[in-house]
Structures are given as C-alpha cells and as structure tokens.
C-alpha cells in the first residue's frame, strides 16, 4: 500500500500528491506555518537522554548509505566534559544515482535544520557544520538562506531556544567541499573539514569518540536528520507504521526497515525523479506506478538499487523490495541511498561496468594500494573488453581483483573499495554471458572464478 501522505515531501510537491512544477523554497514562516519546528519545540521540553531514547525506539536507520541506527550512534558519545563537541551533517551527496538530499536542500532546508537542532540538543553538541559538496552551488545558497532565517529566529546563535550547550550558544555553519566523492565518507569528510585532503582515517577511534578536531563528533546524513522533526511530533508508533517491519519469527534484535524513504529514480524510465514511499516498496512499483514505466516502451533489464556502490539487480529481480535486507536476499551490497538506476533491454552491461569502474578509479583517494591499483586495473580491463580486445581470462582476473578488493579486512581503510568490488563483481556475475560473448577464448588456463 502506498504511503498515505508525504512526510519528507510534505512541503515539496511530489507525485502523486503534488506537481513538481509547484516546488518553491520554503522559508521560515511557511515552514513554521505548516508545523515546522514543532518537533524541536517538543524536544527541548524533554531531557536529552529521552530524545535519544525516542529516536532509538523509532529504529530510524541512517539514510546516507550504511543504514546504521541513528539513536544508537547518538548513544555512543562519551560523557560531556565541557569542551566542544560537533555535529557534521553529510550533504556531500556524490554517489552516482543519488540526488535525494539535494531535493531537501533546494526546497525545504529548514526540515534538515530542525533535525540538526534536535540532534544538538539530544547529544549536547555545540557546533554543527553542514558539509555541502562544492558542486551544489545553489543548494549552499538556499541552505545559507535558511540558516540566516534560523539564526534570526533564535534557533541557533545567541539566545537560541536550545539554551547554552556546554556553556556556549549553539552554532551552525555551512562548509563547502570542493569536488571529491571521498569526502562523503565520514572520516574523509572530517579531514576535509579540518582543511586537509579528504583521506579517510583508520578506525577506531570512531568519530563519536575522536572526530572533528579530535573531539566527539556525530555524523549524519541530511535525510536522516530531516526525519527527526516528524518523529518527535508524531511519535514512534506513527513512524513504525510505515516501511517494513520484521517478518514473523525474526528476533527483535535484527534490524528492520521502518519509515518512509526518499527514492531517487534515474535512468531509462519515463518520469525520473525523487519520490517518497515506504521502505520496502518494490523496484517494479517504483518504475510502473511512479515513473510511468520504462521509456520508449522497452523492457526492463537491470537496476542498481541504491547508488552504484551497491551492485546490480538482475532482470528477474525486478520485484526486489527496497529495504535494508535487499543485500542479503539479492546478492548485492545493500540499499545504500535508494538511488535506483534503471536500465532497459538495450543497455550494454560492459559499458555500464566500465563507466562504474572509471568512477571508482577516479575517486579512489589513493592511500590503500588494493583500492588505488585495483580500481585502475578494473577500469583498464573493462575498457579493453568493451573495445572487443578482452579474453575470457581477463574476466576471471576481473572477478579475482574485484573479489579481493576491500574484502580482506585491514587492507583498505574505507568502504569505497567494497563499493567498487560489489559493483563490478555483481555486474559481471549476473550478466556473465554478455561479458563472455564479448571476449575471445584465452589460450591459458583459467583462474578459479570467485563467486559472489
């Protein structure tokens, strides 16, 4: 059953409830006039720990890719010591296929600001940085505009309704990146915020203990924070009435997929765009009911469920539900950002793999050898195969490289290597015949194929 009413898109006209042509920047007055900042007003009447417990009970999971439970992350912070503690908001959105945070930043940035203020209150964080990717020029301007309004209305700054946190008035700033996908990785982001190149850090220590400027830091995605206001207003049961709970017999300790989700649809569909639906909606429903079907009357061939790092769904996996279990059930990495990239029957999967390998080769930060070299090799081999010069041995080698990159603990620092691994490996495995038919038979002995 479709979502009854939009939550994150409440003020952003989105089909089936509204027409994208009517979208406009929602300023402070309109936001407040439509129930905005009520969640924050409620939060400040509660003890910080109560707010964390509420978010924990809602089982809100991170919307930035990894799906980590937000409330749990918040509870990892050490006790206050009076020194600065930070919130860094991940608005680096650079994963191909992902363009959902942009919608919130363009039209309803106050929804994110409300979540920021709630998180600062709950976690006792005195300074927030919104790290916006450099290419989001317009979004940095709309966010700054909303932030100025929020300061003027005492959400942040001197006299803030949050009161002083660790004896300081809470501050929130926009910090612009300058073009590097890796700065979306949480510790790459921190390095970048500190004015350095965005090289991810070895963990532990985790940011909650030693993050920005060596101090305890919470990092959350824009959409995760935007969800907090509505949860505070409407409560845990309301949130859990959406999305997909646990199946029968599943222990309560197993993570579920509650809540609504922004789903970005791109590629070969008639009406691409960002939509809002229950977590657990199927790829088929999204394509047929929201996107007006496949373009040019063609047939579905493949889809990437959530940004290219997640790997691919095969033709027969058309009805896969978009929830946090998708990885386990459909041999891909996971739901990621729910930025679904749809491909029609004419799509050349070798080109797709080549494009994706190029992305990772280009964006690898270069500090771990398997990732730096592996992504580059994969790109070169796929370019060769695409040009018709590959051998079946190249395919084996490709699977071996992708299968070992990031898979061996301790050889790579961040998740980029895993993403490249899953992306290439699942495309080659699930569309093996297509790759094989493009290659010459090799003379040598084939290496063992590494399974998915």
């Amino acid at each position, binding site marked *: 059953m479709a979502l009854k009413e939009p939550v994150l898109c409440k003020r952003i006209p989105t089909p089936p409830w509204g027409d994208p042509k009517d979208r406009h920047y929602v300023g402070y007055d309109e936001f407040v006039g439509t129930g905005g900042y009520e969640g924050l007003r409620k939060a400040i009447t509660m003890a910080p720990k109560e707010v964390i417990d509420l978010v924990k009970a809602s089982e809100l999971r991170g919307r930035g890719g990894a799906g980590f439970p937000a409330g749990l992350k918040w509870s990892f912070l050490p006790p206050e010591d009076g020194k600065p503690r930070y919130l860094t908001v991940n608005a680096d959105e650079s994963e191909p296929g992902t363009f959902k945070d942009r919608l919130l930043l363009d039209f309803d940035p106050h929804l994110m600001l409300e979540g920021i203020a709630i998180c600062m209150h709950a976690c006792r964080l005195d300074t927030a940085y919104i790290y916006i990717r450099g290419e989001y020029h317009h979004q940095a301007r709309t966010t700054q505009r909303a932030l100025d309004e929020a300061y003027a209305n005492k959400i942040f700054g001197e006299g803030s309704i949050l009161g002083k946190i660790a004896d300081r008035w809470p501050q929130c700033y926009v910090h*612009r990146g*300058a073009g590097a996908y890796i700065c979306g990785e949480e510790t790459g982001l921190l390095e*970048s915020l500190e004015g350095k190149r965005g090289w991810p850090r070895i963990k532990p220590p985790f940011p909650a203990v030693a993050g920005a400027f060596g101090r305890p830091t919470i990092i959350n995605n824009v959409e995760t924070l935007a969800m907090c206001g509505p949860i505070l207003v409407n409560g845990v049961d309301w949130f859990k009435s959406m999305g997909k709970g646990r199946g029968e017999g599943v222990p309560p300790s197993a993570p579920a997929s509650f809540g609504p989700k922004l789903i970005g649809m791109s590629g070969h569909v008639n009406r*691409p765009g960002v939509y809002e639906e229950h977590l657990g909606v199927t790829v088929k429903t999204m394509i047929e009911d929201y996107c007006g079907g496949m373009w040019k009357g063609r047939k579905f061939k493949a889809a990437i469920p959530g940004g290219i790092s997640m790997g691919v769904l095969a033709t027969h996996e058309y009805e896969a539900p978009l929830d946090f279990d998708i990885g386990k059930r459909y041999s891909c990495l996971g739901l990621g950002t729910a930025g679904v990239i749809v491909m029609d029957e004419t799509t050349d999967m070798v080109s797709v793999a080549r494009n*994706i390998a190029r*992305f990772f080769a280009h964006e690898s930060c270069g500090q771990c050898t398997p990732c730096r070299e592996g992504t580059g090799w994969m790109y070169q081999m796929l370019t060769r195969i695409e040009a018709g010069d590959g051998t079946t041995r190249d395919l084996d080698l490709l699977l071996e490289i992708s299968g070992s990159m990031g898979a061996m603990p301790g050889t790579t620092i961040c998740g980029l290597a895993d993403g490249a691994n899953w992306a290439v490996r699942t495309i080659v495995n699930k569309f093996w015949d297509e790759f094989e038919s493009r290659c010459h038979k090799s003379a040598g002995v084939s290496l063992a194929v590494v399974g998915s």
Partner: protein
Amino acid sequence: MAWLMKNSGGMNIERRPEAYLDDALKAELEKTVLPHYPTRRAATLPVLHAVQDKHGWLPYQALEEVAEFLGLSPSEVCDTASFYEMFHLRPVGRHIIWVCQSISCELRGEHDIVTKIQEKLGIETGETTLDGKFTLMHAECLGSCGSAPCCLVDDKLHEDLTVENIDRILDSVK
C-alpha cells in the same frame, strides 16, 4: 583526483607585486570565516574558494599567501588544493563547463552532448578555447541524475540536456 603535476624541483614561480589575497579580502575572511572554526587550518577550503572566486584560478603565489594567512606551510596548502577537483592550479577559461559523465547521464546520452560541445567549441575535454572563454571538463555525478544528462556552467546547473538545447545554453553565456 587532481594530482599536482608540476615538477616542483625546476618550477619557476611566476610572481606579481600585488597580492591575490589582498588586505580587504583578508579582513573580510578574518571576520566572516575564521570565527567558525577552532583552527585556522580548517578555513583552508573556504579561503581557497574565496581567492579562486575572485581570480578564476589559484596560482602558486596565491597558495603561498593563503599559507601565510593561515599560518601553514605552502606545501600544506598545496597538498590540500591539489586534492580537490574544483581548485584549478593552472589557468582556465572564463567559464567552465562540467559535463557529468557518470552512469545515469551516460545512460541518457551524455556522449552526444559532449561530442556536440567539442564540435561546437573546437576543443577536447580538458582544453580551453583559444579566446579563453570556455574550458570543457568532465565531471562525475553532479547529483542531478533524475534530470540527466546534465552539466554545470560555472555555478549554474543545466538539466535535461539535448544536442539542441546545449547549443542555446552555450550561446547565452556572455
């Protein structure tokens, strides 16, 4: 990643007497940017953005001035600046066209758009037109996959590109 490709050993640093990061800009940054951060180094990205916005690119002398302003060594600033795609350590055209080449855009015809621009301007990707007006660059996903193919011209996003409308878009750039 934009690795710095200059051979610094034999590097001849071009200098000019007037500063890129002049006193007025310094005063403004000191007031509006530096108070946001607990360290001066954290202001590196915003300061580099500010200097580049003013000058178009970041000559080595400008990096040295930024380093001095922030109390860093020039190599630290250079290290940071060279990591990011958007910082230009060599001269570029007055306008930069960034065409997204990532998957959602490629699936919806990015190749034709790039070919069209290359033919129209008579340059390859990475090059600048002789009149110094345009530099053409490849970009990875611009976060506009739902209106692919797309490009940025300087700070303005253009969506749902076709070989026809890209022509008009470029003509309208002054």
